[in-house]
Structures are given as C-alpha cells and as structure tokens.
C-alpha cells in the first residue's frame, strides 16, 4: 500500500491537500492518542484520514462513536488519563455533546483536549447554520480558527500544546469552506510523546460534579478564563498589521479573512487599511484591539453568520471609552456564507467607494438558463422502494400518513416524486416528534429513521414509545451503513473505523430489548415490494408502538465494495411500453429516462428490478 502524502514522515515536504486532511495531519503531528467522533458533513474526512494514517502508525486509538456526546466523552476520558485527545463533530453535533461540554470546561483538560466543530454556513448539508463560536463564549472555552490549509494544520497542532499549558479544553472551529477546500501544505514534524504515563488522574474533586465540587470548579474556570484573556494578545496566529497613517481598521478571522485579504488586494487598499487577523476568536485580544481602535476612526469587522466579534468590539470600545465607528453586519450579510464578491461589495459600501466589480464583464442576462439539478435518491436506492410502498399503501388503504423523519439520505424523500417527508428537525427527533404527534393526530403516524441515526439518538425515542404506549409506527430505513456522509460503519455493521472487526449489534436485538414484541416487529427486504407492502398493511392495521425494519444495503456502497459484480440492467419492451410515464413520474428512478420521446433505461441502472413490478403494462423486465 502506497503511503498517502499526509501520512509521510517527511517534514518540509509540500503537497496539495483537503482542509480535513490537513486538520487530520495536524492532530496526528501533535501526537493524538485517542480520537473519537461521529460522521457529519463537513467534518467526516478528518476521522477517515486519521484512520488512514492509523494504518501506518497504529499506536493511537481511533473510533467512530455512537454519537457526538459519546465521542466527546471518550475523548474527555482519555484527557483524564493525561492523553492527547480529539473529538470530531459537525456544528450540530456539538449540540448533542453540549451537556458534557458545558461542564467539562469547568474541569478543563488534563491531557491536551481539542474538540473540532465544523460549522456549515449556507446549510450546504445541514439543518441549520448555527454559529458555534457562541459555544466558546457560553462555556468559556477558547475557540481557534484558521485562514487557510497550512494554518489549519498548524493551529490544530498548536491547540494541543495550548490545551495542556492552560489545562483548558480548546474548540477548533472550522467552516465548510475550510474543511472542503484544498490548498498547499508543508508537512511538519511528528511529535514523539514517549515517556508519558497514561493513567487515570485520580483528582476526584476535579472530575466529580457534585454541587460542592462544581462551585469550586466554577471559580477555577473563571481564573483560567482570565489567563486566556490576557494570553489572547500573544496568540501566535493572531496578527495585528498596522499601516502608517491608516485611519481605517479591519478585523477578521478564518476563511472570511482570506476574502478580506484578497478584497484589499483587488481594491489596491492593502497599504491604506490596518488589519487584525484573529487566530483565537474567543477570548478576543483586547490589547491589540485597543491599539487598532486608538489609531482608527472607523473599524469594519468581516465575519460570517452572527456579529460575534462585532458585538465584542463594540462592548470593548465602550468600556475603553474610545470614540470610533465600528461596523460589521450593516455591510455584510448575516445568513449564508460570504465570498470574495460579497466581501468586496460590503467593503466598498463601508468605504463609500464605487465597486469596480459590480458589473460582470460579460452580459449574461439574455443567455439561456441551465435547468436546476435538485438532489434525488440514487438510481437503485432501496429507500425509493420503501417510500413507494408507503405511498402505494396510503392509496390502497385510503389513509394519509404523517411522516416524521430524521437526518439521512431518506430525507430526500421530501422532494418530487416521493413527497413523503412532513417533518425533519435533527438527528434522532423523528420518533420523539412522532410520539407527540400521535397523542393528538387522527391517523397513522410514522417515524422514518435510518440505521445509523437510530443508533445515534433514536433509541430513547423508541423506548419512550413503548413505555408510554404511543401509537407510533417506526420505520427503520436500514441500508446497513452511514450512507449520506459517505459510507461510515456503525454498531450495526460490526466493522470499526480502522476496518477491523468490532462486535455487531443487530438492530432487531435493540428493538426487542426496547420492549417491541415479535407481533409488533416486521423485517423486510425493501426491494421486495410484495413483502414490504404487506408488512405496512399489517402494521397500519394494529395500534401501539410497532417497528418495521426495511432493509437493503446501500446500492452505492455495495457497488464500491463489489466493483466487479456483474449488473444486469432492466430493459423496456417497446411493444408493451405505452410511454405513459407512470414509472418516471411516480417512481422517479433516475435510470429511467426519456430518449427520443421513448421511456428508456440508461447506463445508471443497477438492476434492482423494483420498477419491473410497477409498470401497468409489464413492459419492464430483467435483461437475460
């Protein structure tokens, strides 16, 4: 096996890597001993890359945890044992881990402890775009950011040293634009941490949050915070760049700083504006800000999402009694992400100069519009088959179901032609919401949840349904992998992140354990329409908590493992086909398409054969 660039022991070597690869490299160089997390775009590749590095350096421990809370707790436990520990999650994952996080920051870190929060401005693959810098403020936990790929590696590596020096947890906050960007990276030295003893630190008062201890730890946390506040001015990745005679200042951090940097270049303003680039966005560097304020008449803050730095800057200027104009969200949008055009637009407005880039050099107004490509379930996806069966049974039984859904590929069942999903809030909420809806709504209430999501946070909802005898029909869309984030294994697969075998926990054993009896549990092959529709019909006819496991492996994942598997696509008999379009319109598999006005099977067909059953004219069959 050839060694990937990010796993080379060659300090000084240059390459182009993904932000997440650079972060993983930094964590590895720092000498991480335990890494844990749960997959979530845009953070997933950090753990996967660490796992690939692990193949060559198996001295550290790495795991996909059941959910972010557990992942965070695993890392916390390792830190208690004096090990460098890393917890990896997307922004909303920190909500899951927040209960532990909020109190863990009282105790602080023993071994270096870094939690990464990958935020997702513009909700590229998330249900919200919450700004997790506020978690730093909320928990008094220092928050670091990086402006490019090189810094991403360097900052997160430094974060472990910092964490040990200040005995503080550190949050590394990234955004999609850093995680999923590529750039040049120079590899650094791989730290050797040989003579450490990894025993549990029996400082019982520190780790046991009884009220009497919590009060003591709270005071210690505040003392630690004061030290962090003072240190922020000396943070090695924070840089104040004062320009002679400049009366205007700019404060920024992370990827928005990269836009601001290039915007000043594009506008030929680099020598006219002083800049403060923050590597540590919480606590903020008060002395450096003061210096910038004293020398400026106006200061602009370029940040994505909330006015986090802006609010602090205004408060600080007020406290210091310095009179100047501080502006931010007045000129930059609060929703979605920024880009170079947006930052130039905001800056020129702030400076009251004309924007030379406001008009495009080409006139595109009269050009044709490319058709949109909304997300669809993949060709051959077994979720389509389950949804189809559900829609079919809604009609046969003359009932409308309520679909309380969860986070996963099946959420795409919201779109045409399925249009099933009625609600989806966050991981694990499907069953809980369905429990509530079932108390009031007249008609079948369904909870749609995936296998990985069920393990993540679905189980308590099911136990609630059984315990309180809620009239909820739980459908587990089991494609036997964490598909949406790119095929990560989970407890139900029995494979660990390293590829080594773990202990497989069958879904049905948990469901039975939660109190679902045999007559309330159905297990079907999703692609067997006959079996699936029959199970749905039976389940709808009874009351109380009941579960259907609709199981078929993710077709893309299967394809990626069995590359040489011979696929026998379906074919359409032109004699029988009437071009009624029912298959395209109501089943909607992308492999069924129109060519020359005729319904045709294209090269994407996986040969799942579900569409054979649905054609009223029996025009579809498997190729011999």
């Amino acid at each position, binding site marked *: 096996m050839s060694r990937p660039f990010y796993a080379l022991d060659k300090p000084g070597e*240059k*390459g*182009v890597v993904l932000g997440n690869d650079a972060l993983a490299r930094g964590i590895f160089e720092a000498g991480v001993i335990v890494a844990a997390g749960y997959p979530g775009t845009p953070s997933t590749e950090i753990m996967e890359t660490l796992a690939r590095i692990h193949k060559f350096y198996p001295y550290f421990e790495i795991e996909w945890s059941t959910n972010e809370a557990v992942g965070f707790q695993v890392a916390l436990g390792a830190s208690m044992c004096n090990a460098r520990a890393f917890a990896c999650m997307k922004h909303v994952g920190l909500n899951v881990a927040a209960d532990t996080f909020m109190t863990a920051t009282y105790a602080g870190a023993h071994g270096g402890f870094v939690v990464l929060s990958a935020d997702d401005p513009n909700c590229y*693959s998330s249900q919200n775009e919450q700004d997790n810098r506020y978690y730093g403020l909320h928990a008094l936990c220092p928050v670091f950011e990086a402006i490019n790929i090189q810094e991403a590696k360097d900052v997160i590596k430094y974060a472990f040293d910092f964490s040990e020096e200040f005995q503080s947890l550190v949050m590394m906050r990234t955004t999609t*634009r850093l995680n*999923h*960007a*590529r*750039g*040049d990276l120079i590899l650094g030295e791989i730290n050797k941490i040989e003579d450490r003893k990894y025993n549990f630190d029996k400082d019982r008062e520190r780790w046991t949050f009884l009220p009497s201890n919590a009060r003591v730890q709270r005071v210690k946390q505040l003392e630690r915070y004061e030290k962090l506040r003072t240190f922020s001015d000396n943070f090695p990745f924070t840089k104040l760049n004062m320009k002679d005679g400049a009366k205007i200042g700019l404060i920024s951090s992370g990827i928005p700083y*990269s*836009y601001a940097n*290039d*915007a000043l*270049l*594009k506008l030929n303003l680099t020598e006219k504006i002083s800049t403060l680039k923050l590597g540590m966005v919480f606590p903020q560097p008060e002395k450096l800000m003061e210096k910038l304020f004293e020398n400026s008449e106006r200061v602009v803050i370029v940040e994505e999402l909330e006015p986090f730095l802006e609010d602090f800057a205004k408060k600080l200027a007020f406290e210091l009694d310095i009179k100047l104009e501080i502006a931010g969200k007045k000129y930059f949008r609060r929703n979605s992400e920024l*880009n*170079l*055009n947006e930052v*130039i637009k905001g800056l020129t407005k702030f400076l009251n100069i004309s924007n030379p*880039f406001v008009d*495009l*050099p*080409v006139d595109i107004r009269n*050009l044709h519009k*490319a*058709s*949109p*490509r*909304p*997300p*669809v379930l*993949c060709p051959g996806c077994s979720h389509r088959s389950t949804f189809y069966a559900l*829609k*079919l049974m809604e*009609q*046969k039984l003359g009932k409308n179901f309520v679909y309380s859904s969860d986070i996963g590929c099946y959420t795409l069942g919201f779109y*045409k*032609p399925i249009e099933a999903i009625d609600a989806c809030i966050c991981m694990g909420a499907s069953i809980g919401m369905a429990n509530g809806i079932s108390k009031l709504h007249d008609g079948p209430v369904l909870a749609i949840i995936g296998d990985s999501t069920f393990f993540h946070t679905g189980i308590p909802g099911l136990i609630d349904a059984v315990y309180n005898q809620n009239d909820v029909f739980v459908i587990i869309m089991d494609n036997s992998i964490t598909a*949406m984030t790119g095929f990560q294994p989970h407890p139900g697969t029995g494979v660990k992140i390293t590829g080594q075998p773990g202990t497989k926990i069958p879904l049905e054993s948990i469901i039975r354990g939660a109190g679902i009896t045999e007559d309330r549990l159905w297990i079907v092959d999703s692609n067997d*329409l006959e079996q699936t*529709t029959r199970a749905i019909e039976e389940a709808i006819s009874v009351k109380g908590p009941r579960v259907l496991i609709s199981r078929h492996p993710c077709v*893309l994942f299967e394809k990626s493992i069995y590359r040489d598997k011979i696929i026998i696509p379906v074919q359409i008999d032109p004699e029988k086909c*009437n*071009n*009624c*379009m*029912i298959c*395209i*319109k*109501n*089943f*909607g598999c*992308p492999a069924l*398409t*129109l060519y020359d006005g005729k319904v045709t099977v294209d090269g994407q067909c996986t040969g799942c054969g579900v569409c054979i*059953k*649905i*054609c*009223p004219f029996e025009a579809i069959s498997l190729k011999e």
Partner: protein
Amino acid sequence: MGLQLSRKTNMKSENKFFEKDNYNALCVGIGGTGVISASIILGWAALQEGFKVRTAETHGMSQRGGSVSSYLRFGKNLESPFMVEGDLDVLLAFEISEGLRSLRFTNKNTFIIASKNTVIPPSVLTHKSLKIDGNKCVGCGNCVAHCLPNQIYNEKGEKNYYTLMKGPTRKVINGYSTVLESCTGCVQCVIDNVCPFGAIEAFNEWEYPDVKLIEEDIKSVSNNVILLDANSIAIKVGNILTANVILLGILAGVQKIPLSPNILRETVKKFVPKKALDVNVKAFDIGFDIGINNKK
C-alpha cells in the same frame, strides 16, 4: 507523441509570458465524472510550478447526478479560495449546461473548453406539464377519456396492484377540461392530437436548453472557446472516464495558464488509477494535440 511532447517543453513553463500574479480556473460538471480530480491535478501541477494553491468546491447533496463546481486559484499572492465573478482565466466544462451555468465567472478572454455532452436532470422529465386554453376548450371530455394514466387510475390497481397513481390526471370541471397534479406529463394527448379544438399545449416547467443554443451562448461570451464531444473521444480512446483528462490535455496544448504540459502530464500519471494509466496518457496526448491545433 510523448517524446515529442517532452522535447518541446521539457522544463517549467515559460513564465515570462505570464505576467499576472494569480490565475483562476473553474472545473464544472456532474458528480462522479472527474471534475474534482481534474481540479486536484491542476492544483498539484501549480504547486510544482511554485505557486500557492487554493481550491473550493460546491456541490449538491446527492452522491451523483448533481452539479459540481471546483474553483481553483493559484499564484504568488492570494488567500481566498474563490475568485471574483468575471475574473476567470480558464473554464473547463465537462457537461455543457454546467458550462452555461458558470458563465457569470467568465470574461471575453476566458479560455473555455467545454464538452458537448449532456446530462439531462430527471427533474426536467418530471416537470413536463400541459396547458389548456380556456377559450378553445368546450369540455367535451375527449382528452379525459383518452388519457392512459387516468384510465389506470380509474382501474384502481386492477391491472397491476403495484402501479401507483396518486389521483385522476384530469377532469372536466365547470365545463372545462382541467389538468390535475397527477398528470404524468407524458403529453400523449398532444402527440396524438386528441383535442378537436387544439386547446391542449405541452410545456416544460424546467427546460434543458437545446445544445446548439447553449453552444451559441458560450461562444457569445468569450473569444476563446473550444467545444468538442469529449465523451465520444474518450470512448474511442477506450474509457469514458478519461474525458476529464482529454480536457486537461487540451489545456496543456493551448498554454493559456502557466502550467507546463510536461508537469501536467506527469501529474495526470500520478493521479489516475494504475490500471487506467495508459488509456489516460493516450487521452491526455490526444487532448494535447487538439490544444496545439487550437493555439491562437
């Protein structure tokens, strides 16, 4: 041909012709067709030329079939992974309508290499519908009776238990034939001319523009456009997945950005699967020749 190539340009690109500090490229296409790999190859080549490299990607949620854009910037003085709209030096479009979608980044000097192949999104097919002209329709019900999906709905699954028709496709309401939501958009009623009064018209809510029109649009924005069917060439070379490498070969041949053909060729060799090395090198060289012939 490989030898000839290395004799012609056996060193770093002749940077003196390239006076700009920074260069912007954009690779666009459909997920799973090598859009991002092309950008990675260009990025590594730029690194070897001693440049700073920044890339960013945007793509939809779907694993495949969605639009993918990979922004690449390289040069001496830059941080942002995005370029300013209209500031593009090179646009590589692996699917023609994706090229059309990205024209706001181009200017009249942008070098555009676009493959003419089309991937029509399934949503275009499911967004076909019918308009009924109320002035012409007399509510005779001819079209209702003729509609095959409507007949299937009325049979309530007698023909096939597993055929899903959510409702009737059309009805005569208040003396007018009315198209309902369940219409499958097969437009057979229009094709078969069932309306004696010519009141039915088919239309697309979402249209995939005609390829010829897209070509004209692309040519209208820039003076440097190469349009070709890279997929067909790739199939002839022996693997449709080499279409992206053909476009990289053309880019190497036309020499519009300071990346030497030799370094690009070596980088391609480094990044393609070992099994497909020969076919990719062949694809690159074919592209390179096309590029040389189009060098202005």
